[in-house]
């Protein structure tokens, strides 16, 4: 019966998903590190596994040995990364680790390509890996049966490790209360290194076990990382059994969904995640209140001094001057940079004072870009109207989506924004009649000279950023911060917390939409890429690089990030390595952000 076979196939997929995700769950549970580089560790596992398995005998024992070797190798790499990078950041603002692990993603991508080359590497399958059995009226790969068993096996071993060993007890204690464990004289540094290394090893195991069904290739990292996050969040952050349950749910629904609705392949996973999070924000087996990831240790923002205002005015004048002197290329870079400033500032409203992390901020940027592009092409609207359409469209949709999103918090909220952004992206790809699909909307040029358009962007972005700043120091902004820092007290004082958060969400989306609209005319075209995850990551990088705690942070972060990226992309074919190293260096030297106070190394 094909339904049962399809479901069984889904179980094999579920095991693969669980193997990718369980390490991430282990790491997050203890260290609270949101490890963007988890997919890179998975990819390293596949490549290491490929190298080892080619040398070992092509027998089941050889295979087992090679897979174990790859897992151990990646665990060692994980330990080194933890000691060299992450260890230095535990005392830094929580989200900064995210930027550090993003830098690692870039560095590992470049290194893997340098070591193993660009071509896809597939492992020749010995007969025992290609065998199939006839079951439920169809042929089913025997290896996939092993995989189906590998998931629960790993789950069981992890359970034993955490329930029965002293190491496991300490880890559980650290998950509950880090300070208490430290007070008992347990060396947290060693504990965190071990846990990170264990998580990395699990990722490596998953990568090596994926080889018989596919190949080692550049791009495995980004393909696996979203899946891993989805499974962990749906299962409940830090709950390994939850991750397994989530993997089964997603794997089986995805497998069955392919039969009923093949066109839905781009969004199915995200729709499932959104549905679970809306009903159960803490995930399937997560405990309510465990979904941390709140920006910690709130610091009051400084009201802008006269000096700050002057500095901002000087910066705007300097940019205007630079724009009037620059050649066409640097003019394009400057245009991009000022648009990025508004985009980053809009994310900062949510992230900083709003206390809401967004992994899907590109949604608002992209909706704005499409609104402007459609107004200019389909409706033949003049430039001001088209530009106005961008924030209006983004703001209205943010108002709608925000109703659901602001009820959540922490990483669950962040993942719901990601789910929405991915759904919006899929709409852009698949609603071809409206959006042109992958071919996008072309020919949206502003009818101004590039210099004229730059000055327009500068004016709009400067005013927009200044207004956002103004809002954050107005009573609305103060109330918003109260709602973030002390929700109970704020509620007791009669502040409408949900409405405040919704207002911040809409404000943030509106401003991001405006920056998207400006970008559409700067590039002359809009593509689904404007809604893609990379763009959301760019925005996060800019804000974190600049520093979350001050309003000047996103401005400086956006300028620095755009400048770094654009220059390195032009200068070197190893730009990923250099960009990663530069980000790492900045994070390690200035954990408070480029614009942050209290600079210096975190202990």
């Amino acid at each position, binding site marked *: 019966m*094909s339904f049962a*076979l*399809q479901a069984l*196939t*889904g179980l094999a*997929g579920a095991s693969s998903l669980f193997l990718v995700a369980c390490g991430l769950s282990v790491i997050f549970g203890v260290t609270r590190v949101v490890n963007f580089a988890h997919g890179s560790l998975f990819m390293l596992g596949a490549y290491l596994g490929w190298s080892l398995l080619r040398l070992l005998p092509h027998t089941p024992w050889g295979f087992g040995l090679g897979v174990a070797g790859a897992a151990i190798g990646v665990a060692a790499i994980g330990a080194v990364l933890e000691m060299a990078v992450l260890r230095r950041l535990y005392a830094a603002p929580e989200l900064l680790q995210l930027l550090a692990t993003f830098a690692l993603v870039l560095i590992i*991508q470049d290194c893997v*390509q340098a070591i193993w080359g*660009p*071509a*896809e590497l*597939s492992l*020749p*399958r010995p007969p025992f890996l*290609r065998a199939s059995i006839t079951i439920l009226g*169809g*042929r089913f*790969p025997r290896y*996939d049966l092993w995989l189906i068993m590998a998931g629960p096996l790993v789950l069981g071993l992890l359970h034993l490790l955490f329930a029965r060993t002293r190491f496991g007890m300490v880890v559980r204690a650290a998950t509950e209360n880090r300070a208490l464990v430290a007070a008992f004289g347990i060396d947290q540094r060693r504990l965190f290194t071990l846990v990170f290394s264990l998580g990395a090893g699990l990722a490596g195991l998953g990568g090596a076990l994926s080889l018989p*069904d*596919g*190949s080692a*290739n550049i*791009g*495995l990292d980004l*393909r696996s990382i979203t899946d891993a996050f989805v499974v962990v969040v749906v299962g409940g952050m830090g709950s390994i059994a939850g991750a397994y349950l989530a993997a089964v749910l997603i794997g089986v629904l*995805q*497998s069955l969904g*392919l*039969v009923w609705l*093949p*066109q839905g*392949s*781009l969004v199915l996973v995200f729709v499932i995640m959104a549905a679970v999070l809306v009903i159960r924000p803490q995930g399937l087996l997560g405990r309510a209140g465990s979904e941390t990831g709140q920006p910690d240790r709130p610091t009051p923002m400084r009201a802008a001094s006269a000096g700050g205002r002057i500095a901002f005015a000087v910066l705007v004048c300097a940019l205007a001057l630079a724009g009037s002197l620059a*050649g*066409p*290329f640097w*003019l*394009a*870079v400057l245009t*991009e940079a000022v648009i990025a400033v508004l985009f980053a500032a809009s994310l900062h409203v949510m992230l900083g004072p709003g206390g809401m992390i967004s992994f899907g901020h590109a949604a608002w940027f992209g909706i704005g870009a499409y609104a402007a592009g459609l107004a200019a092409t389909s409706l033949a609207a003049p430039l001001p109207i088209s530009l106005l359409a961008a924030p209006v469209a983004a703001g209205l949709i943010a108002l709608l989506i925000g109703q659901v999103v602001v009820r959540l918090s922490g990483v669950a909220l962040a993942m719901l924004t990601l789910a929405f952004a991915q759904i919006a992206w899929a709409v852009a*790809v*698949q609603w071809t009649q409206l959006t042109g*699909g*992958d*071919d*996008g909307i*072309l*020919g949206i040029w502003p009818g101004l000279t590039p210099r004229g358009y730059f000055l327009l962007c500068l004016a709009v972005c400067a005013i927009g950023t200044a207004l956002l700043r103004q809002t954050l120091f107005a009573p609305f902004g103060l109330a918003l911060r109260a709602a973030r820092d002390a929700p109970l007290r704020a509620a007791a004082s009669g502040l409408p917390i949900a409405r405040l958060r919704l207002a911040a969400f809409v404000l943030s989306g509106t401003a991001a939409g405006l920056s998207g609209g400006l970008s559409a005319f700067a*590039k*002359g*075209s809009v*593509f689904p*890429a*404007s809604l893609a995850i990379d763009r959301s990551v760019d925005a996060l990088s800019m804000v974190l690089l600049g520093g979350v705690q001050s309003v000047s942070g996103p401005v400086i972060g956006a300028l620095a990030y755009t400048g770094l990226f*654009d220059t390195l992309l*032009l200068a070197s*074919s190893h*730009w*990923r390595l250099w960009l990663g190293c530069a980000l790492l260096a900045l994070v390690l030297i200035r954990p408070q952000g480029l614009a942050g106070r209290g600079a210096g190394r975190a202990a």
Partner: protein
Amino acid sequence: MSLTRRSLLAASAAAPLAAPARLRAQGATPIRIGEINSYTAIPAFTLPYRRGMELAVEQINAQGGVLGRHIELLVRDDAGKPDDAIRLATELLGEQKVDVLAGGFLSNVGLALSDFALKNKTMFIAGEPLTDALVWEKGHRYGFRLRPSTYMQAAMLVEEAAKLPATRWATVAPNYEYGTSTVKWFKQLLQARRPDVRFVADQLPPLGKIDAGATVAAIEAAKPQAIFNVTFGPDLTNFVRQGNTRGLFDNRDVVSVLTGEPEYLDPLGDETPQGWIVTGYPVTGVTDPTNLAFIAAYKAKWGEMPKMGSVVGHALITSIVAGIAKSGSVEQEKMADGFPGASFATPFGRALWRTQDHQSTLGTYVGRTALKDGHGTMVEWRYEDGASALPPDDVVKALRPA
């Protein structure tokens, strides 16, 4: 300056009079080709492609270049994003003063660059992007495309597919423009030839994230007699492995786009399914002197066999150089007039830039997959000229508003 006058001057070969602004370039300075591609995002294709280009530049310069000037190639990485490609095009055009823009792998990057070229009235020669829009819906005076498009690839394969007895077909294609468009043309053209054909399942896995087991099981459940595959790269490897183990390809005809290209065939190794009808490049099988000369030169320079990307990169440069030679100038309007009709040598033989739609007539090989010494290869292949895979001129005219 009016268009007609430019054309007239081009014909009279009074180059220095026609383009006073470009006088500085008419000395011994090289002609600059600015190339933008997804080098870090799609390395498996673009690195051999870059090597092909560099070989062509070296060969052309050794023969004295074109119009008495050498060729200089400036290469930029767009990181796979159209926005970055546009900024780099600004840099190449504005700072480096390139004479011709070229490149692209992803269709959206190609389209973004093409639109940029139209706005700046600059020549843009797309090498790899396969989308039909590039020369049809969004085609324009300054835009050209080298490779056989999705339509052409589908049309070449339909020739063979129509001969198969199968009437129940399933399709599997990556869920983006290249995949959906190729499937659309294949269905349309096949059903025109074979009204008895029905399509019983359409799988659209996300690009690079195929759930191969589930996809194979879903196709199997539909019990098709034949399968049309559009996946490539890591997706194809996963799909073939699951399909082999589950017996999806047993007693079924499979027609598959691009699978015969070494980039995608090599990773299949000894699991290469036999007898698939594919488009590709039988690099170890070709025997004609043109191909052999190219392969020998490529191996001598790079120490490895060329891939399809190498051929595209090489032909891209020779097609541009031939266009410049025919135009007698690197003045943009003259090139826009001169490129159409220019004939150029490629490793696959001669091709030309069509005047109807600026599509080149470079073709590709159609054959069957086979296994030889544990490696995938193509057999029973023939070269299919691009010109024969394109629709009649009146259809093209209707498809191309420009």
